[in-house]
């Protein structure tokens, strides 16, 4: 079986490839790049005017299985992923039971194989049951396929334990992904601390709750030599701390999410629980700083923090609503609209942050190279569309971005040489 992509702009930042050419996929792998004539029974896709990039990677997804299948499961989550142009996703360990041992890691991979859509790379818990007491069986989880380690939204408070956990991970050269939040300073707040929170009567979370934790973890990364990846950066201060740390040679990378360069805390006005996320949406100044960080390379990765929640978990009092929003099916459109079309970063830079950069951090194969698995996303950078949560493949619809008009979408998502989604619709 051969699949021929005709006439697209092939863009792969991992090897400085950017040219208009045909791409031939044969038996699930990249076979040839150049001027290629179709054979009689080839599947041919005319991708003239479109951009052919390595399969997008989302390194921050909550798949909710096992344990919270009413929000999402591996199948629905991977369907959402391919609809949004992602061929690989990394799954956070806050499942039930927690992904803190090899059997859960293998279970998630098995479920992903059964679904047969996007590739799923489990992120193991750093400590048993995410409790911050004892280090989990990291070596065994790596043997089972875990690619990184994180205690997710339950960051380790104890700096001594964090140091040992990072020392331990450094032994395997695996990254530690940290949700940076000083919980005592955040003090069960619901939104960004500031004038709007004061007016709405909602308890705020100061930026410093994130920044203090970023700084601490940067210092522990420096102490241990462990690779630190800071999740969902949301403040100017965090960007500045990480920028300085990189200059100082600390092994730190970081991500932000589309919501942090698209929305401000104003989205909370009217008590929209879909805008309740953690870290919270911040100010226009923070959004500007996030964009600067994306532009100057301080921020390596665009990830989604796809956090599905059921309707009843959001259709409630603001204080009681769960934190998080879905993102798999809007991320590419937001990155293209808010960053590329808006002139903040180039298309190549956006693609780098959604392909080569997360692949490097997680140690994944990625890139349009002869012999590589043909995980390919074809992007129509000019496709105009409107976000309609009712059409999401995710089981959950929690986003404050419904009705938003975006420019740019995935027109083909190809996993292992098979077209699994076309124009945001799953066809596998």
């Amino acid at each position: 079986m051969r699949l021929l992509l005709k006439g697209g702009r092939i863009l792969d930042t991992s090897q400085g490839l950017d040219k208009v050419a045909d791409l031939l996929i044969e038996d699930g792998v990249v076979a040839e790049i150049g001027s290629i004539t179709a054979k009689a029974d080839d599947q041919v896709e005319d991708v003239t005017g479109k951009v052919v990039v390595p399969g997008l990677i989302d390194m921050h997804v909550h798949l909710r299985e096992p344990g919270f299948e009413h929000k999402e499961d591996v199948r629905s989550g991977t369907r959402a992923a391919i609809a949004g142009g992602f061929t690989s996703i990394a799954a956070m360990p806050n499942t039930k039971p927690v992904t803190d041992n090899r059997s859960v890691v293998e279970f998630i991979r098995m479920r992903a194989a059964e679904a047969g859509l996007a590739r799923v790379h489990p992120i193991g818990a750093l400590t048993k049951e995410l409790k911050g007491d004892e280090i989990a069986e990291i070596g065994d989880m790596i043997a089972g396929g875990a690619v990184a380690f994180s205690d997710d939204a339950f960051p380790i408070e104890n700096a001594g334990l964090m140091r040992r956990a990072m020392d331990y991970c450094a032994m395997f050269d695996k990254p530690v992904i940290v949700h940076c939040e000083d919980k005592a300073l955040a003090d069960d707040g619901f939104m960004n601390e500031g004038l709007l929170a004061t007016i709405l009567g909602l308890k705020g979370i100061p930026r410093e709750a994130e920044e203090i934790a970023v700084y601490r973890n940067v210092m522990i990364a420096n102490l241990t030599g462990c690779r630190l990846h800071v999740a969902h950066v949301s403040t100017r201060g965090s960007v500045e701390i990480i920028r300085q740390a990189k200059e100082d040679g600390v092994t730190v990378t970081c991500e932000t999410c589309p919501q942090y360069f698209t929305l401000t805390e104003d989205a909370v006005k009217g008590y929209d629980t879909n805008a309740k996320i953690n870290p919270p949406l911040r100010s226009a100044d923070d959004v500007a700083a996030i964009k600067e960080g994306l532009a100057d390379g301080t921020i390596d990765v665009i990830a989604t923090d796809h956090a599905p929640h059921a309707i009843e978990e959001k259709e409630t009092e603001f204080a009681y609503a769960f934190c998080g929003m879905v993102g798999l099916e809007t991320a590419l459109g937001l990155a293209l609209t808010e960053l590329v079309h808006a002139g903040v970063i180039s298309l190549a830079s956006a693609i780098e942050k959604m392909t080569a950069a997360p692949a490097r951090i997680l140690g994944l194969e990625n890139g349009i190279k002869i012999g590589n698995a043909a995980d390919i996303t074809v992007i129509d950078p000019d496709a105009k569309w409107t976000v309609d949560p009712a059409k999401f493949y995710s089981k959950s619809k929690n986003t404050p971005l419904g009705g938003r008009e975006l420019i740019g979408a995935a027109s083909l998502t190809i996993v292992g040489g098979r077209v699994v989604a076309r124009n945001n619709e799953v066809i596998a």
Partner: protein
Amino acid sequence: MRLKRKDILGLEEMSSDEIELILQTALSFKEILGRQIKKVPTLRGRSVVTLFYEPSTRTRTSFELAAKILSADTSSIAPSTSSVVKGESLKDTILTLRAMKPDLFIMRHQCSGAAHFVAKMIPEHVINAGDGMHEHPTQGLLDMLSIHEKKGKISGLTVAIVGDILHSRVARSNMWGLTKMGAKVRLVGPKTLIPPEARNLPVEVYTNLEEGLKGVDVVNVLRIQLERMKKGLLPSLREYSTMFGISKERLKAAKDDVIVLHPGPMNRGVEIMPEVADDPVCLVTEQVTNGVAVRMALLYLLLGGTEDAAAA
């Protein structure tokens, strides 16, 4: 006359014209409270539900009396005796009550924005009787009515709100209402109880009581919650009382004809000294009476006919 809005959720979103209309209507309704037969047929056949998720004596009673004087039927739901204790969500509670066809909901809830959530969900009127730390619009209105009665005006006055501003919906409603009506507002309290970026609100902020009271026309004293020490917001009630308790001596900094308000219930000897609480400068009981008048006005302006209020 009628308010051109479905809900009363807060004073932030109200215009000064609307506030003026409510206060004038309340003044004309106050006459009814002085009658021997306190009943007019204005809202006969309309029904009102009070749903209080937090304990309240004065606000709930005040709303119920206001509705009854206007001949509306009232039902009151206390979550501790309702299916809320069985785990029913706010959404389902409201949809269930709605199915019994009331015209208006009066709601108090511990979460900021709870009344907004309900108001968005249903077509019936909603009056916010206090939502978390957000707003308590009827308290703001009755405080303004009390000030207006004593001072003959609101515009040009300086009002100091003293105490736990951070957690206070009363402070927020007073601030919006008073500033819209042309008064100057000062927030006075320990820094731990002043909300973040309060200086960017249309107010002046003081952490020194004497400076905060200097030359003011009105002092609105907030209740200090006794559990605030546990969160490290205050070292002790003793220190609070020494630094921020309103005594006769402290009031000397204010204008000679200063008046004192308190939304109740009072902690005598903590935020307000008995000598002030029992002095004619303190309008606590007048505030309660005005509360009934203000709530009558709101019910009338939301549910009533197009006739002038005075005709009721």
